[in-house]
């Protein structure tokens, strides 16, 4: 696409409180995933691969790590002369006091001045905590071809799942005729993925109106999309098929990691035409010791494995001692499992130490055990 024809804004302010101790110190988009990535690498790499030059990352809660990470725009090649990743927490202005972002739409409203600097025709609004690969340039082409005011990416879910999502009711031309937030009795199974392309001029006008509306929660799903629909604007659904995951809970984060053990997983991180970029820690390749027993596993560089690893994902800097057993588990970055310890159906948080001969988790547990303190 042309330079700055479409600007991307990533909503990365979520507290992710259902991830418990994993998000005590880092915002959810900075949580580690897939051996070497952080969740926000996915929307950022998608932007880079879709030819988008300028990305704003809207942070809010506990953003120091997320902020300094996203600021390294070179990780995604977004550091050329006219491109950049800009971290945008709430800020004080001449005409308003310092205030938190009151909702997803307010986060954009508070950064209208930033967006105006680039004078884009289209605005892409993304969430910072979903795992998926998507070509936003194709979505923009669809938006243009449909001559829509807004295009919303949707994916088919089951009727049961549909009760947990914003659901789009469309006609045969993918035109959105109605929208329901978490309906008890869904009229459609097309769930919004929280990915929007807007005509910037139209959205801008609407945001300025919404800003002072006391009845508004300043949210895209609750306020802006309904306002567009009620205003008679053309909204279309862009159908996505492929891997998409909101890793909102420990179970779903574990599951998303386990998905990678299937060689034919839909996400396919090994696709040379659509790489996910991340920080490279410059360590050695994975060291697999003389007595190691490796089964199905997903292991990244900078690890040392001297024990058994089966059906598990081992992140950068993790170590598995001699005679230790890692079964159906996820070892996040820097985890050290000492000799003889056994870890089963557990997700061990960053830099945790599992001591010699400790037994953690169990094969029969229904839920995945989160270990966030040394054991």
């Amino acid at each position, binding site marked *: 696409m042309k330079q700055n024809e479409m600007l991307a804004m990533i909503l990365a302010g979520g507290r992710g409180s259902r991830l418990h101790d994993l998000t005590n110190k880092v915002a959810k988009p900075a949580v580690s995933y897939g*051996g*070497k990535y952080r969740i926000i690498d996915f929307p950022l790499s998608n932007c880079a691969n879709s030819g988008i030059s300028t990305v704003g990352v809207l942070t809010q809660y506990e953003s120091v790590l997320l902020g300094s990470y996203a600021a390294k725009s070179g990780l995604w090649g977004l550091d050329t002369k006219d491109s950049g990743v800009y971290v945008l927490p709430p800020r004080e202005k001449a005409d308003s006091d310092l205030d938190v972002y009151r909702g997803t739409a307010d986060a954009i409203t508070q950064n209208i001045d930033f967006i105006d600097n680039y004078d884009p025709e289209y605005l892409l609004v993304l969430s910072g905590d979903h795992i998926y690969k998507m070509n936003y340039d194709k979505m923009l082409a669809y938006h243009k071809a449909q001559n829509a005011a807004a295009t919303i990416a949707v994916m088919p879910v089951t009727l049961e799942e549909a009760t947990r999502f914003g659901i789009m009711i469309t006609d045969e031309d993918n035109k959105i005729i109605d929208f329901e937030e978490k309906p008890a009795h869904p009229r459609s199974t097309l769930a919004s993925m929280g990915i929007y392309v807007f005509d910037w001029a139209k959205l801008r006008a609407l945001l300025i109106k919404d800003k002072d509306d006391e009845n508004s929660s300043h949210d895209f799903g609750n306020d802006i999309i309904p306002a567009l629909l009620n205003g008679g604007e053309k909204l279309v659904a862009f159908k996505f098929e492929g891997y998409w995951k909101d890793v909102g809970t420990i179970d779903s984060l574990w599951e998303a990691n386990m998905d990678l053990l299937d*060689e034919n997983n839909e996400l396919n991180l090994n696709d040379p035409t659509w790489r996910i970029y991340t920080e490279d820690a410059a360590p050695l*390749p994975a*060291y*697999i010791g003389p007595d190691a027993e*490796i*089964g199905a596993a*997903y*292991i990244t560089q900078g690890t040392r494995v001297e024990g058994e690893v089966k059906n598990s994902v081992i992140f950068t800097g993790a170590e598995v001692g001699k005679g230790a057993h890692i079964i159906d588990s996820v070892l996040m970055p820097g985890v050290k499992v000492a000799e003889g310890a056994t870890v089963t159906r557990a997700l061990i948080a960053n830099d945790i130490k599992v001591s010699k001969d400790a037994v953690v988790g169990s094969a029969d547990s229904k839920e995945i055990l989160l270990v966030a303190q040394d054991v």
Partner: protein
Amino acid sequence: MAKAFGIITSSADKKVAGLQEYRSIGAFSFLGRYRVIDFPISNFSNSNINNIQVYIASMPRSMVEHIGTGRHYNINSKRGKIQILFPDQTMANEVYNTNIKNFRRNIEQIKKMEKEYVVIAPSCMIFAQDYDALLQDHAQSGSDITLLYHKVTDAKKGYATCNVLDLDGNRVKGISACLSDKDEENIFMESYVMKTELLYSLIEKAAAVSSIYSLSDIVNAELKNMDVRAVEHKGFFAPITSLRTYLKANIDLINPENSDDLFKKDWPIYTRTTDACPTQYYATTSVKNSLISNGCLIKGTVENSVIGRGAVIEEGAVVKNCVISAYDKIGKGAVLENQVVDKYATINDGTKVIAPAATPGYIKYRDKL
């Protein structure tokens, strides 16, 4: 900011069968994800030497792409620079292709450096060295030149194209080819510290004496006129001078005792990232005592081997004591022992290639067999 600039010489005098037909030794991949040149560049960067000249003898493409502007080596592009310097024209008779000739060709670039000292390091040797400490040590000693050497006890093996230092205490009495029948020798690490002015004069002197003199030749010839001192290097050291030493250096570094000595937390070895995903291991796999890069699919058996990025080891394949390079495919039931497999090679299902450890085999770039 160090008071020295760094020179990395091309090591064009070393000959590694096979690999070197496609790139210079500095551009050889090493331990799966590095290239040999990453070691001297990281040594300079970690020593706060941010102005670095890399001399290239031939086939510059892969080296130019790998080094780029040096950001991944932590060199501030505004205050420092990694400069790649090319020979004028490679001479048909190889004896003429000396480092002195390459320096003379690029003398204007050397003069622009405006640093009091120069540190010279080879592109073909794997070791960690704090050159800032060596520089301070050199300045304090009052010597004209400081050379670095490593004491070995297996001099008969693997140092054939290296030089050795003849020492009297720490005074250098002679530099000569490693042809001795002794086991103990002081292998010259082709590393020099001296004032930049002295380098100029040695370059001029060498050219005046002989068109085929290299820097070590002229230093040797001038030993009687100068105070040349040697400092012993401790720690992991591996010169890449033959296919056998290349394979050995890789396999020696599987052992954490060796790799912990070379890769220290406060002395990172930088390289360029390729954004490969983690490696996928299968239920059928058996991996022992190996280093495995990212992006691989490992279904077969791997022992005592180093596996490069994106390699595929199929079910039933057996790889022992090998260096498998990036994007190689090892077919089902294939057996490889003591092999260096160059990049993008395909070993068909069932193919067996076994060599003795003393004379490892080389499988060519993009070859299919």
